[in-house]
């Protein structure tokens, strides 16, 4: 069935009147071969950016989530700050954050502060995604049943210990699938760094395209991204399914 549908689509594409031109500008094997090594080098920058950003996002998001679920009165300013941060950051399109930081910070000409667009694009991604991931963490933490709090406190654990040993581990486990989902889209959003002049894959592809009037590099980059995200997406599906099985087993 799928084969028939895909076959039909491909047939429709190939038999369309503009196909020969399109094939030349988008699917030219010569250009693909020529740009391939450069793109392979450039995609490493995307992967590096993704890995660095991911670790930072997890840390910042967890701190934000902790601030938001805290109860102690002297943490109230921090809590309000966390709410403000989440609201503002989630309202700004990620690409604007990238451009603003990567061009804005260097223009301040601060002493001892790096002007590297790579660094500032990564920082922008961390800022943007940590606001989302913090909300994911928070929903996980808040989904843990109050009886777990009660029994931990009845054992004499403090609020902090209860969070650390009982509530957060359970909450995080529950949100692993949506978390992975966010990371799939983070992987793709490393491409936004191209607009900040980082020599990552999309930038290199655009560069080549501008000189050679051929769009094949874009198709190659798209394939790179697919190869990168598919494993993560499959892992996400697998974890979701496993969790569902566990929950069903628990309900019996």
């Amino acid at each position, binding site marked *: 069935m799928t084969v028939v549908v895909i076959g039909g689509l491909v047939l429709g594409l190939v038999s369309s009147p503009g196909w020969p031109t399109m094939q030349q500008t988008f699917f030219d094997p010569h250009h693909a071969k020529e740009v391939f090594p450069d793109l392979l080098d450039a995609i490493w920058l995307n992967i590096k950016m993704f890995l660095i950003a991911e670790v930072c996002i997890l840390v910042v998001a967890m701190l934000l989530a902790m601030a938001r679920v805290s109860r102690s009165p002297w943490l109230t300013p921090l809590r309000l700050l966390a709410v403000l941060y989440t609201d503002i950051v989630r309202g700004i399109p990620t690409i604007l954050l990238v451009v603003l930081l990567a061009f804005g910070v260097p223009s301040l000409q601060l002493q001892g502060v790096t002007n590297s667009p790579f660094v500032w694009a990564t920082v922008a991604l961390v800022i943007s995604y940590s606001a989302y991931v913090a909300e994911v963490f928070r929903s996980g933490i808040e989904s843990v049943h109050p*009886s*777990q709090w*009660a*029994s*931990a*406190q*009845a*054992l*004499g*654990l*403090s609020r902090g*210990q209860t969070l650390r*040993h*009982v509530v957060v*581990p*359970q909450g995080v*486990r529950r949100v692993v699938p949506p978390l992975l989902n966010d990371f799939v889209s983070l992987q793709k959003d490393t491409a936004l760094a191209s607009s900040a002049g980082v020599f990552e894959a999309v930038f290199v592809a655009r560069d080549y395209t501008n000189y050679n009037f051929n769009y094949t590099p874009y198709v190659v980059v798209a394939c790179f991204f697919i190869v990168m995200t598919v494993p993560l997406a499959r892992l996400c599906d697998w974890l979701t399914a496993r969790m569902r099985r*566990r929950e069903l*087993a*628990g309900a019996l």
Partner: protein
Amino acid sequence: MSALLSVAGLRKSYGDRVVLDDVSLSIEKHDVICLIGASGSGKSTLLRCLNLLEDIDDGVITFEGREISDPRVDARAVRSRLGMVFQAYNLFPHLSVLDNCTLAPRKVHGVRRADAEARARELLEKFGLADHAGKHPDRLSGGQQQRAALVRALCTSPTLLLLDEITAALDPELVGEVLEIVRAEAEAGMTMVIATHEMAFARDVATSVCFLDRGRILEQGPPSEIFSAPREERTREFLRRVLPGSGE
């Protein structure tokens, strides 16, 4: 005056709904107090108040001669001396049975991991759970989970054990194995306050039975008295309902 724990004039309300009203109770060492009463009469709430899990509106609770209902008292220090087991077990699902049992000894009482594990294994063994120490709670039957929850509470060597209808969620054939442990603890001299619907069990182990009715302790006395010759009409009515054919 030498009571281990005493409650005087305790009042607790949720909003304008009074749940406990002028409750007074005194618990001596080695007492086994059973709280009986209809659903909603306030048994669970009373236990939660004793454990400082709920703020109270009025009254005084003293533990070993110290007033613990004072808001300045460190509730954690008090809770770490009291054990509590809930109707729904409330084991930590992400930890193995052994880790469930060693968490509080290690994190609250500062016991070394090896010592905490040795003690937990000893108790698990005693209660027939030795084979399940490494398993997660969802692999255990209800009865096994509740026994594990009891072991978890006992691992901190509490001075007083609060049990809230710990057999109410169990299949009838599993009730016995759990009550057996409670009985053994009672015989070993553990001081306990037990909310229960198991009248035969209460008659058997209690040193004193309290009948709660709409947030008040209507009647308290030794089980022989409460079950055979209750003073209050409402107690008689309740017992007639829960003990059909008991020759009232």
